[in-house]
């Protein structure tokens, strides 16, 4: 009997366990396996095989069952009341990459848009792919302004890991030499179209501090040997990325990190495995592994390892910590600081300006560029000229120009209208801001043990909103965008400010922040729990502030750095 148990335990024991297979889980798996660790990746959702399980990747417009591939109104209401809130992401071509809200309930004290997919690859399949480095303007901001707690790392700590990540994933972009947006290892930039080039020239003449560049995006424009050897190829400009790329041209776990990890022979991926709790060994004062619920069989099982990486994304990783309360951790695993679930951040968006353009009627473009313009932050850079009296931090813009299509508003009917719509419409330009959200302790998610999900597991309640700082920033985000479009001589310049609720940026972060002091933070400078050093959290939960740039590149760099450390420390017996 003892022998059987021992054998069972040995079969369930790995060097490392990674919870989650999305953008950070894939990176943890790659780094840990490549550094010699036998690694188990636990994914709560089902399997998604690269290419084979992208069933809609080659669907043509006429394959849509309903207008524009949108799901029926009744189905959206019943199954996807939250996932439909983006207005663009959920269609019949992508529904298999999003959760059903009726099966994954949570409570909203204030509206919180929790947009997610449970499957191997997670949101690395559906992400926006924009990839920007942080700078010390971001890492030093909390300390400089006395907000929340200081980051325990600086740009120099992460810079080599940004290099490492960019070299592997492939980032297309243009070096600009801006201190607030460090350049990286870039593949050739995508091209701006004629109106974007004119906009850049005219707007920069008036506002030289507002640099207009092409987006930096995780697409291959000149694949390396390493990327080709993984089976990845060059971007084909279909702009159907969110369905999964059959060319492996944008970075995803499925196309890249999990493939690399698999090739080491040290990877095992176990789908349908919902990690419910971390298992704590009182004697060793370390985590010994995790307990899972098999989503298919309903059976509980345990897996063991010397090191555990939580890479389930900010909200689920914090959920696991909170749900792992015990005598040692009455307030949640590693939560002596009471910071787990607090400081929930995102990027606020849905604000900017649009315009129409006279001229360029005889110009067009060819190909569907999965990328747009980027205008790096130009407010509060530390000098007097960029200082705003009305708010802290800043924002960047994403946008672009294009000709209006056949779906532009038109009146009448008949042959003349049909002929007109068969030709491209006027050029339009749009800029949309992505703003930094400060870490507010009261912006939080809490575990609700009274309301259980279909597995009998506690659900979450969200209570978070933007504050005065963000509200003031939004006014400027609309006004400054309009100013630039006016400066370029465009017409019908229309600032807009739409509804925004936390989560809509799909950049949720901050729920287990890094810091220097165990009393006020959850993780140390290496992403280890202060209170249990063989548990690492390297997804968005770790973020001490949000900056204004898309966060995935930073999550990947933090993960690779932590995994390298974990492998080394484990070898030395320091975990």
């Amino acid at each position, binding site marked *: 009997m003892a022998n059987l148990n021992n054998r069972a335990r040995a079969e369930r024991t790995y060097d490392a366990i990674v919870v989650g297979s999305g953008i950070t889980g894939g990176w943890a798996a790659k780094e840990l396996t490549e550094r010699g660790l036998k690694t188990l990746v636990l994914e709560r959702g089902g399997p998604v095989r690269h290419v084979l399980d992208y069933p809609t990747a080659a669907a043509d417009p006429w394959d849509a069952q309903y207008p524009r591939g949108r799901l*029926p109104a009744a189905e959206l209401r019943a199954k996807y009341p939250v996932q439909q809130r983006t207005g663009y992401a959920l269609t019949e071509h992508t529904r298999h990459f999003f959760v059903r809200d009726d099966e994954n309930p949570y409570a909203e004290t204030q509206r919180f848009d929790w947009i997610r997919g449970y499957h191997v690859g997670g949101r690395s399949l559906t992400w926006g792919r924009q990839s920007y480095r942080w700078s010390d303007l971001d890492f030093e901001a909390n300390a400089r302004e006395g907000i929340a707690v200081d980051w325990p790392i600086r740009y120099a700590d992460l810079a080599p890991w940004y290099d490492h990540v960019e070299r592997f994933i492939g980032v297309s972009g243009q070096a600009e030499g801006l201190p607030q947006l460090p350049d990286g290892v870039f593949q050739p930039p995508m091209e701006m179209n004629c109106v974007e080039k004119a906009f850049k020239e005219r707007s920069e003449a008036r506002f030289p501090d507002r640099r207009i560049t092409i987006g930096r995006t995780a697409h291959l424009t000149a694949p390396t040997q390493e990327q080709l050897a993984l089976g990845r190829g060059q971007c084909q400009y279909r702009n159907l990325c969110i369905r999964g790329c059959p060319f492996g041209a944008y970075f995803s776990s499925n196309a890249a990190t999990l493939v690399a990890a698999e090739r080491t022979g040290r990877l095992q991926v176990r789908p349908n495995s919902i990690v419910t709790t971390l298992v704590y060994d009182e004697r060793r004062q370390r985590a010994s592994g995790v307990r899972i619920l098999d989503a298919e069989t309903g059976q509980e099982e345990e897996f063991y390892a010397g090191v555990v990486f939580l890479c389930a994304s900010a909200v689920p990783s914090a959920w696991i910590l909170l749900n792992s309360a015990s005598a040692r951790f009455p307030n949640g695993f590693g939560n002596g600081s009471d910071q787990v679930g607090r400081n929930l951040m995102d990027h606020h968006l849905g604000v900017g300006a649009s315009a129409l353009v006279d001229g360029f009627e005889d110009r*067009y473009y060819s190909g*569907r560029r999965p990328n747009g313009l980027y205008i790096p932050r130009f407010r509060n850079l530390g000098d007097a000229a960029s200082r705003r009296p009305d708010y802290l931090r800043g924002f960047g813009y994403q946008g672009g120009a294009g000709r209006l299509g056949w779906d532009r508003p038109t009146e009448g009917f008949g042959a003349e209208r049909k002929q007109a719509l068969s030709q491209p419409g006027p050029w339009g330009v749009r800029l949309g801001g992505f703003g930094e959200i400060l870490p507010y302790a009261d912006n939080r998610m809490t575990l609700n043990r009274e309301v259980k999900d279909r597995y009998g597991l506690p659900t979450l309640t969200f209570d978070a909103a933007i504050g005065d700082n963000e509200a003031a920033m939004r006014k400027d985000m609309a006004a400054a965008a309009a100013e630039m479009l006016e400066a370029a001589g465009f017409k019908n310049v229309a600032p807009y400010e739409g509804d925004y609720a936390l989560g809509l940026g799909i950049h949720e972060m901050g729920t287990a922040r890094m810091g220097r002091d165990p009393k006020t933070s959850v993780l140390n400078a290496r992403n280890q729990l202060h209170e249990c050093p063989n548990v690492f959290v390297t997804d968005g939960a770790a973020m001490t502030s949000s900056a204004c740039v898309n966060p995935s590149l930073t999550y990947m760099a933090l993960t690779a750095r932590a995994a390298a450390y974990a492998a080394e420390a484990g070898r030395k017996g320091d975990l």
Partner: protein
Amino acid sequence: MATPILNRREAFAGALAALWIAPVVAHAQAAAAVPAWTPTALSTDEARTLAAACERIIPATDTPGAAAASVPQFIDRALAGWCEPQEAERLRAGLAGLDAAARARFGAAFAALPPERQDELLRTADAEGRAAATARPPRPHWFPAVRELATVGYFTSRAGATQALRYDPVPGAYRGCVPLAEIGRGWAT
């Protein structure tokens, strides 16, 4: 290569083969014939009215029109399983009203009228639609809704996307500034 999704639209292909080959259903008599498909949301009369209206909204020209692109079937399917029920009801009532107006003014079903008469009635509907849109508060109206569905259905159909527009499933490259003359038409996507 990944397999394209199977979809209900393919199921119509057989029934439509005749329409793809035969002269386009462009004028009154042809449109008044029994539809070559069985509507789901609409009655036969409503489907006939819809098909005739769609063909006036997006007529066959040097490129196929709404009927050849199966737009009426597309709209029927949306009304059956996609719209809010009250929206589908509003569109059905609108089609019935259009047919009633045809009978009252010209003594024949809308689908049986010559194109000029049909256009006259549609112009009235279009004007009503504009008035409803600019009313305070704006009111929904069936005509802009049908026009919108017909437009989406047409330009996302194979005929609309590849003949009226240009479609390139795998462009392979992005060129940011090319003469429009080189492309010739608007891109479907």
